[in-house]
């Protein structure tokens, strides 16, 4: 039996190739994601080797309230026996201006300053040229920024101090962080500790690093230092490096998870394709299988033979998939790096796990998909060997009742879940997951039912091409319907891909429309000033910016908004305040109150935005405790609840209240409304005349801000569509596979139609239209489903937000067109083959 299987594999190698191709793509996606993850981890570990070089013990502040280590830490550590060298590392934000006076920023983030380090061995960088700064007016610069800005040793650079005032420093050295991209293309200026204090506002150390004296063990020293500094976080050098790496890895781990979800979707689509191919292959080999039964093969042997075939195909596909995965992992890594993700360069890492997982996925998905076809093969009676080729009768009434009952039951469960999720008023995450699961269950019902409705739907859709293209299109429509099970399985793969794509598009388009609508409705302003964001928070906008803006007659309103991070009853929240002068422009307009009244908003009260998790369950009249980063806290009464995402902090308190909670709070956002009758050019000039002196302040008109938000969502849609594209490509391979097997099956039929007067072109058209119908049917069902669930999911994701359902018609029609066109493209080769066959030769075949 084994030999027979091998011979069969060899004979059908071309037919199995397309199946293997689907597996290659599915496994390639899985392998690529895993290999990317491994490579990333290895790269991140290597990356931190430089920062942790020679560091045997690292001391960092433990408490959230204390962001710096006091200067006395150095003395404490130095007194610990076994300590070789000690250095305090300072790190602060420091905006650097380029030669033309513009902010050197990467992705809107200004650069940082770092202390030069007093112990050469413990420096996190290598000196590339020049020397380290020795006086407060000297500085060194990282090599990347130096190359970008053209600064060279001996040049004078301008940096902005904490009050945004310019200072000139002399560039004395260029430093290199090795392969590390810890600072991700940020401009890093190296200053003396004294300059760090005067220019960058450092008051202590962000980290104290220690090297051990000869003969002292890392962990022993770490224990001793820890005993001396019980309030700080003290770890051994190796642990420090791991911590740094894990931090970075955790940030990217969610990306891996998302990628794996899409890889799983691709594998599910893949299983449809494999199931379908094996079903068709079995149907075509009925005579061969029956002959095997005639000569004595048992049912079990036939079953085993088909499964063995699937194992071989799965294995071959998986091996090629791993090869593809290596390439894909490399491209992902490179692609993300090119997109500005802080990824160090690293060679592709291939560990055992991705290989084993990929082999398992490839073989298991293939074998599981081939189980039903294999079981069907055992049902072939030996007598079938003697029968003439059976004519496939269209519209055979197979057992419909069980299918319908099952679909109704599954559909009922899915609908119940969806309704339950949609009407659930608790945690929006629970509601969203419930709706999504309900959607998946309902989709299963659609799949079960699809053999029943794909035929009529094809007929309905085939009507128009039939009218336009005449008989060939009508033949195509009849062919597409002749085997409902096959058509359903082929289109199901497309339904999954297109369904998910359209659901994501609808959801994201709804979010986009809702956000931009809110902006227009709630922000009756013309310009928004935003503070530059850094890894350590907002740089802030100096209050004099607002003061100077108010003096411009072209501007009628200037509203200062301060946003601070803190906690509400222990849960993290953004605390906002609006200056009292013009707060009417914001309160009641940017926030839609759902309970309480804006009139109650006064000293000692807070307006909570219901979208924040910290505000969950709070009612008007409740007393809550708000606290800011440095430990100050106050009790506030809830004056009102507002719906939706707040742009001024989820907990809005009075101006004075915020000043009491955080005396250092400064403006983060300034909203500006132009005076009536002032042209946009004039008002923009007025704003720019003030902000030009503050390079870190970003000015955007409302239109620009809106387009920024829109662009973000658009790129998200593009990313999702790109990730789902693999699933759609696999589905199209399925279409090609089904069609080429059908063409093979219909060799004589094609010859007959040619003899009766169908031209080559018309025969080709028949197959192309058949593919088009399959593609469009799959896409339409997918679109309908995606539309419904995209909307249902969006609704519950933003409870109390009243998102408006937005149908991105153009995009959805685009998906439909692409699915149709791609299905037609997939049919080109099979159609060519069918049209090329000689009539006489094809007629002679049995």
């Amino acid at each position, binding site marked *: 039996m084994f030999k027979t299987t091998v011979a069969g594999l060899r004979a059908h190698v071309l037919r199995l190739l397309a199946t293997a191709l689907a597996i290659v793509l599915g496994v390639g996606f899985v392998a690529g994601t895993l290999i990317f993850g491994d490579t990333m981890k290895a790269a991140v570990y290597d990356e931190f080797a430089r920062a942790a070089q020679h560091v045997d013990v690292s001391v960092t502040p433990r408490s959230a309230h204390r962001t710096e280590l006091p200067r006395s830490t150095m003395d404490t550590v130095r007194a610990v026996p076994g300590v070789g060298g000690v250095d305090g590392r300072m790190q602060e934000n420091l905006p650097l201006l380029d030669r033309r006076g513009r902010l050197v920023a990467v992705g809107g983030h200004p650069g940082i300053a770092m202390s030069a380090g007093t112990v050469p061995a413990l420096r996190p960088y290598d000196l590339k040229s020049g020397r380290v700064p020795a006086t407060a007016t000297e500085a060194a610069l990282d090599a990347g920024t130096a190359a970008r800005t053209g600064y060279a040793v001996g040049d004078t650079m301008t940096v902005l101090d904490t009050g945004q005032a310019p200072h000139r420093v002399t560039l004395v050295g260029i430093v290199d962080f090795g392969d590390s991209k810890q600072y991700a293309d940020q401009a890093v200026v190296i200053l003396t500790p004294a300059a760090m204090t005067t220019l960058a506002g450092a008051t202590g150390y962000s980290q104290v690093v220690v090297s051990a004296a000869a003969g002292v063990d890392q962990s022993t020293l770490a224990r001793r230092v820890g005993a001396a500094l019980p309030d700080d976080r003290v770890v051994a050098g190796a642990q420090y490096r791991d911590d740094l790496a894990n931090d970075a890895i955790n940030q990217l781990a969610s990306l891996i998870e998302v990628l794996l979800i899409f890889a799983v979707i691709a594998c599910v689509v893949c299983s449809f394709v494999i199931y379908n191919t094996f079903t068709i292959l079995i149907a075509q080999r009925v005579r061969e299988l029956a002959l095997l039964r005639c000569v004595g093969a048992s049912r079990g042997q036939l079953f085993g033979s088909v499964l063995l075939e699937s194992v071989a195909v799965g294995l071959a596909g998986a091996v090629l998939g791993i090869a593809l995965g290596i390439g894909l992992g490399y491209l992902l890594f490179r692609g993300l790096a090119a997109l500005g993700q802080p990824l160090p360069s690293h060679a592709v890492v291939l560990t055992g796990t991705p290989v084993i997982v990929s082999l398992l996925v490839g073989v298991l998905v293939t074998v599981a998909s081939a189980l039903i076809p294999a079981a069907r093969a055992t049902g072939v009676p030996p007598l079938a060997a003697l029968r*003439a*080729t*059976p*004519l*496939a*009768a*269209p*519209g055979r009434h197979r057992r419909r009742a069980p299918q319908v009952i099952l679909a109704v039951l599954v559909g009922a469960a899915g609908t119940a879940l969806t309704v339950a999720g949609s009407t659930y008023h608790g945690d929006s995450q629970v509601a969203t997951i419930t709706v999504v699961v309900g959607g998946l269950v309902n989709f299963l019902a659609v799949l079960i039912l699809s053999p029943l409705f794909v035929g009529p739907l094809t007929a309905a859709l085939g009507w128009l091409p039939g009218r336009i293209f*005449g*008989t060939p299109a*009508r*033949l195509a429509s*009849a*062919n597409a*319907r*002749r085997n409902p099970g096959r058509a359903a399985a082929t289109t199901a793969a497309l339904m999954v891909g297109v369904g998910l794509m359209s659901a994501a598009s609808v959801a994201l388009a709804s979010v986009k429309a809702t956000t931009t609508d809110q902006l227009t409705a709630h922000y009756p302003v013309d310009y928004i000033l935003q503070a530059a964001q850094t890894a350590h928070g907002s740089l802030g906008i100096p209050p004099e910016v607002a003061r100077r803006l108010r003096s411009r007659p072209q501007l009628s309103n200037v509203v200062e908004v301060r946003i601070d991070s803190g906690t509400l009853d222990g849960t993290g929240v953004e605390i906002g305040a609006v200056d009292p002068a013009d707060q009417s422009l914001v309160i009641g307009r940017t926030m839609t109150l759902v309970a309480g009244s804006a009139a109650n908003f006064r000293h000692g009260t807070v307006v909570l935005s219901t979208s924040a998790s910290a505000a969950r369950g709070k009612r008007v009249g409740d007393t809550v405790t708000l606290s800011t980063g440095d430990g100050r806290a106050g009790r506030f009464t809830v004056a009102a609840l507002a719906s939706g995402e707040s742009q001024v902090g989820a907990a809005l308190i009075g101006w004075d209240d915020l000043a009491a909670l955080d005396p250092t709070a400064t403006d983060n956002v300034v909203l500006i409304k132009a005076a009536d009758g002032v042209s946009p050019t004039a008002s923009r000039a007025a704003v720019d005349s003030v902000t030009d002196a503050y390079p870190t302040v970003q000015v955007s008109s409302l239109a620009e801000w809106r387009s920024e938000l829109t662009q973000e969502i658009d790129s998200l849609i593009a990313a999702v569509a790109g990730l789902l594209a693999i699933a759609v490509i696999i589905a199209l391979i399925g279409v090609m596979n089904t069609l080429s097997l059908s063409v093979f099956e219909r060799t*004589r*039929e094609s010859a*007959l*139609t*040619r*003899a*009766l*007067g*169908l*031209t*080559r*072109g*018309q025969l080709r058209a028949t197959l192309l239209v058949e593919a088009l119908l399959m593609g469009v049917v799959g896409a339409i069902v997918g679109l309908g489903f995606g539309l419904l669930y995209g909307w249902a999911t969006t609704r519950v994701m933003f409870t109390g937000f009243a998102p408006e359902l937005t149908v991105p018609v153009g995009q959805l029609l685009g998906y439909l067109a692409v699915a149709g066109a791609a299905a037609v493209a997939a049919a080109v080769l099979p159609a060519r083959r069918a049209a090329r066959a*000689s*009539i*006489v030769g094809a*007629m002679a075949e049995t």
Partner: protein
Amino acid sequence: MTTVATTTRAAVSVNDLVKVYGTGEAAVRALDGISVEFGAGQFTAIMGASGSGKSTLMHCAAGLDTASSGSVSIGSTVITGLSDKALTRLRRQRIGFVFQSFNLLPTLSAEQNIRLPLELAGRAVDRQWYDNIVDVLGIRDRLRHYPAQLSGGQQQRVACARALLPRPDVVFADEPTGNLDSRSGAEVLGFLRRSVSDLGQTVVMVTHDPNAASYADRVILLADGRLAGTLDAPPGPDAVLGALRRLDGVAAADPHRAADPHRAADPHRAADPHRAPAAPRREV
């Protein structure tokens, strides 16, 4: 080389037709310079042993296959050298086909199958002619059925209806009774005979069955890709069989290549070809 002249106008004329398969050493001359005319309004049978070239002759004459040399004319149209597209158009408008098996598209109903060539040609169906054919063939109650729901005989009758509906210049039938039992076969042959006698249709039939050939006005015998003789109208099955035997003797061919003599011995088949078929049928 013999040229068979006929008194009637030729519907199809084949002139010095050569068909070679393969090249060099492996080249096989399936047709070796055949010239023959199929008279309009005549029922011609092409007979010969397997490999004698009878199917190839039909395929070339019908424009399904291309000739290596020589020419074929349907009416006044020389079809050798026509493009595939022109040949296709010619087939759908001027030629009807009845094949041995797999005559119908499984996805179309009997009625749709019958109308297919006219629909492909974009021509209107002559309703009266259609009703006439359907009634003569006795398939009216089967029109909505799909091929899988029809017996072999019914399928061949639907195929006959399809071949006749466009009123083609010539109907080519390739072993139309090869897959049928004797009674169904007689029905189909009887219908082809009457379509010639009563409707003036031209029919060219390839067969290896002397009994089937006995329905024809004229039998053309092929051996080794050459014309080996003709029997003129209306030859009885015994005469056909005798001619075949003589042919075998002349060609000194393997006796197994001759038609099966047992078939001719079948009493039902040895009947007068013009006799009404066994099954009662409506008159035209």
